[in-house]
């Protein structure tokens, strides 16, 4: 048990410091996938925001995808608010997909129909 904890500390030292809370182990960081649909719900929550988006599927219905984003405290200093994404908004999101093929991923960037690009990283807009 003690060894397990030490291993965990070694792993922690090797992970990116830009991710506060966890590693990107569940995501395929070598791949990107683009999904388009309609925002169902935007969780402006810690430790991550979650964008739930209804994406049309091959069967004529929709699948709800979950996209993990940065946390509100981080985003708020970069111009985001809880209403930056609203239910009903059309959006095309580029994600790092789940390794297990589940309908989810990590936010890379997104584009609105009018061409506005939404990033979650980038410069601090609240100096």
């Amino acid at each position: 048990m003690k060894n397990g904890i030490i291993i965990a500390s070694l792993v922690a030292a090797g992970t990116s410091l830009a991710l506060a809370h966890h590693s990107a182990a569940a995501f395929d960081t070598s791949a990107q996938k683009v999904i388009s649909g309609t925002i169902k719900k935007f969780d402006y929550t810690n430790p991550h925001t979650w964008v739930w988006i209804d994406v049309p599927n091959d069967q004529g219905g929709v699948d709800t995808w979950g996209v993990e984003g940065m946390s509100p405290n981080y985003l708020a200093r970069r111009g985001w608010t809880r209403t930056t994404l609203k239910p009903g908004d059309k959006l095309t999101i580029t994600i790092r997909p789940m390794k297990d093929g589940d309908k989810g991923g990590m936010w890379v960037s997104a584009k609105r129909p009018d061409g506005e690009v939404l990033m979650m990283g980038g410069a601090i807009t609240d100096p």
Partner: protein
Amino acid sequence: MESGSNTMERTRQIFFGFLATSLALGPVAVAQKVTRPAPTAADWSALAKLPDFDGVWETVFGGGRGARAAGAPAAPSLTPEYAAKAKALASQAKKAEDNPTANCLPPGLPAIMGQPYPIEILLTPGKVTIVSEAYMQVRHIYTDGRKLPEDPDPSFYGTSVGRWEGDSLVVETVGFQQVPRGISFPYSDKMRIVERFKLTDADTLTIETTIRDPEALTMPYSMGARTFKRHRNWTIAEYICEENNRNFVDEKGKAGINLANPNASTK
């Protein structure tokens, strides 16, 4: 299986046993505590003469960890015993995909000082308090001249005392539990972390972190200096990790994401 009443009786015996023990040990524990006198107006005004560390500080990334102290090695110099431990750990086949922070357990010192969220430093008479926005954690650094404890209870952030050396605040911390804390080598319960806080310009703070460990290290290991930028108009935000955490790492070290029930968060 023992009956409920037997269990209850045993619980009662244990409780009174504890009570008797704590009554016997009570005066000793109290004697170890430092009673701080009420701060005077002079104590408060003396703070104005200290370097101005007050405020909210952004952790600056991308600039590297900065320069190590002159002559300090770039890699930790482990004792033979701890080099063997490190080797044994490295050779263990299956490494965890993630660490317990995925389950919202905060990392210990020094990793708590290197999160992508800001810290706030508060100076009051006899004490420096550091608030970490990440995980909403607090460090308590006593600058009233008290000594470090001889046999501290191990914890995530340890027990800290600080002293002023010219324009630098030197913080020494002991008493570390074996938890993820951003240290790349196995360490003992004798580990001591020394942090030097210094303003390099009006709104830039550097913290140089050095690890001493008589059992694990043959010489002090400098982790280099971390840089922080002050934002006078920032406030510390709320960060309740358990609010809507969908990340996890299981007992076998497997990392995952829970995508079930998008309506779980009502926010």
